[in-house]
């Protein structure tokens, strides 16, 4: 994940804005690693959290081009070390009677929850850091994963005693 950066993009909550943002990435040849979008506490705005693959192109150019979109209000780059990142995963896994106990143990260790139970399957929910989700997925894989869905990460700056190192890109070029 070294070459990934998190952009927290505040946009106007209007029709077509997500298409403009996503379209810009494909139009300019940038790669999106993950993307999550939802309204903020102010219903005029939504926040798009984009994890970008900066090996495809420099982050500075991506943020500058993004900021040219009229509906983009503010862009904040969150450094992984200085932000709180969380992601949610839903995962349906084979759970034959013999394996079910082991699976539930793992779910407990990872502080996940069983949210659906079938005859020979369970659906598990786990929220956490992306790395924790990766570990969980790896440990459960041998049992047989039937379906898996991750949300893509959301992030906010980490609160520290000193001011968070939060680099606002907007209008700071010259």
């Amino acid at each position, binding site marked *: 994940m070294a070459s990934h950066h998190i952009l927290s993009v505040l*946009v106007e909550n209007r029709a077509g804005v997500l*298409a403009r943002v996503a379209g810009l990435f494909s139009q300019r040849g940038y790669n999106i690693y993950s993307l999550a979008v939802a309204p903020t506490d102010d219903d005029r705005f939504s926040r798009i959290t984009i994890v970008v693959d900066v090996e495809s192109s420099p982050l500075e150019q991506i943020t500058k081009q993004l900021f*040219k979109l*009229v509906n983009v209000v*503010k862009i904040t780059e969150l450094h992984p070390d200085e932000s709180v990142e969380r992601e949610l995963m839903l995962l349906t896994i084979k759970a034959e009677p013999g394996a079910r106990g082991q699976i539930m143990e793992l779910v407990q260790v990872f502080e996940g929850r069983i949210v659906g139970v079938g005859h020979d399957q369970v659906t598990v929910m786990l929220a956490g850091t992306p790395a924790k989700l990766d570990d969980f997925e790896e440990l459960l894989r041998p049992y047989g994963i039937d379906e898996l869905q991750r949300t893509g990460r959301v992030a906010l700056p980490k609160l520290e005693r000193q001011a968070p190192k939060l680099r606002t890109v907007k*209008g700071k*070029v*010259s």
Partner: protein
Amino acid sequence: MKLTGAQALIKSLEMEKVEVMFGLPGGAILPVYDPIIDSSIRHILVRHEQGAGHMAEGYAHATGRPGVAIVTSGPAATNIVTPLCDAYLDSIPFVCITGQVPYGSIGTDAFQECDTTGITRSVTKHNWLVSKAEDIPLIVREAFHLATTGRPGPVLIDLPKDISNQTMEWYWPTDADVAADLPGYKPNTKGHPKMIQEAAKLIAKAKQPVIYAGGGILKARAAEALRQLVELTGIPVVTTLMARGAFPDSHELCLGMPGMHGNYTAVTAMQRADLLIALGSRFDDRVTGKVGGFAPDAKIIHVDIDPAELGKVRRPDVPIVGDCRLVIEEMVKAVNDTGGSESQADRSAWITQIREWQKDFPLTYDRSGDDGSLKPQMVIETLRDATPDDTVVVSGVGQHQMWTSQYWKVEHPYTWVNSGGLGTMGFAVPAAIGAKVGRPDRMVWAVDGDGCFQMTAQELVTASSERIPVKIAILNNAYLGMVRQWQEMFYEERYSEVYLSPDLPDYVKWAEAMGCVGLRVEHPEEVQPAIDKANSINDRPVVIDFRTDSREKVYPMVPAGASNDEIVVDPSQGEGGR
């Protein structure tokens, strides 16, 4: 006052002081065409929607005011995508209005429905799908605001038919309303004072500087400021294809056009420069050649209103975000504050070197006339000398465009109109019409190729019926000439699908069928009389079919992908003189 959406749209355009719009009606835009009858705005009925778009662009190029085009939904909208993209790449202020199927029918594959805002999203600065009539005045104001401020560009308003028929209570939004509705749009026009100081310091020290003037100078109305900066510092200027006219070609410090077909001195001065002052230019690949080999020893001062241009291609030493005119004016002050012209480094050796290049490698072609063929460059020089120096010259895309840019002496801003970034063949005829509508006081000549002419010639019907007396010089070499040149030089003369025939169509008869005067020139001695005759006709368009030498190539040339050091000059001048 209650108005329909359609009436509100036309009234909003009137409030924006629109004097002319170019368009063609159809089903979804029908309600809007009714109030046009009663409006003060002149409507010019085009023959193809692409023509409407390029006319709006030509108008905007020549006047600096935003061009307006209005067309219907579906195929009309897709036909105008090319001009939108053209305007996007050349930063032309252009407001495009399209009809759309009724709001409730959107997404049902209704008759003449297409996803216009989706299709045009990547070729407009912004676009809107109107969802209620009461939004129309605000959207129109925002559209003109976005098209003309910051980095100018095209915008599109997609108006569903039922919204045009809805009634609304008329209002006109204030600046504050516009600002409140555009919370993410705040272009930075004033350059950072510290950066401008830094720039002045670099300028004073530079021994071999070049000003690299781009289209941003013209967009920012900064030609006068540029002249002050040049005369204060004595730094030579190159004017890119988009900046021809931003600095007069006759000025002793004007080196002309750089780039793939730029002249030797402009290209080489940039290569050897120790400082490039890029003003409203964007390090386009046609200027830089191979980026890694471009101006290797130069420090860069880069001024642009679009922050994304700074560092996009070449990392500047001094980046300045701002409006070119405001920044150059501040730069002039900063240079004056640090001692003015006296404190500038000694550049006499640099100027001497430049004069040598100019003497050794001028633009050249075979002027002898030995083989009796008609040289395209000679046609352009004759035309240039036979027209007033404030003539607006418009070109299409290809060899004729490069020759016109090379041989036309552009003396005034806004007298050179062409398609730079997108390279849109067929641009010239409609753009010339738009330019003439915007500047009826000026003579307007289009220099076009035979390939280009065939793409949009039908707009001469528009010109004839609207009494717009543009003049078209077709450099008819019976080929897609630029492609032919590449096939000759890089594909071992294997000519693939480039021959067009000089006689099919018969350009004279075609011109006459469209209500124009048609003339044909086959020999050098006929050039002057034909141009004189064309210049004397002012009540209709004129088309001259110049039968030019198809073997003629554009030199100098930097081969695609090569460094600018590998510039190839005219074969008569030897091996590049390095």
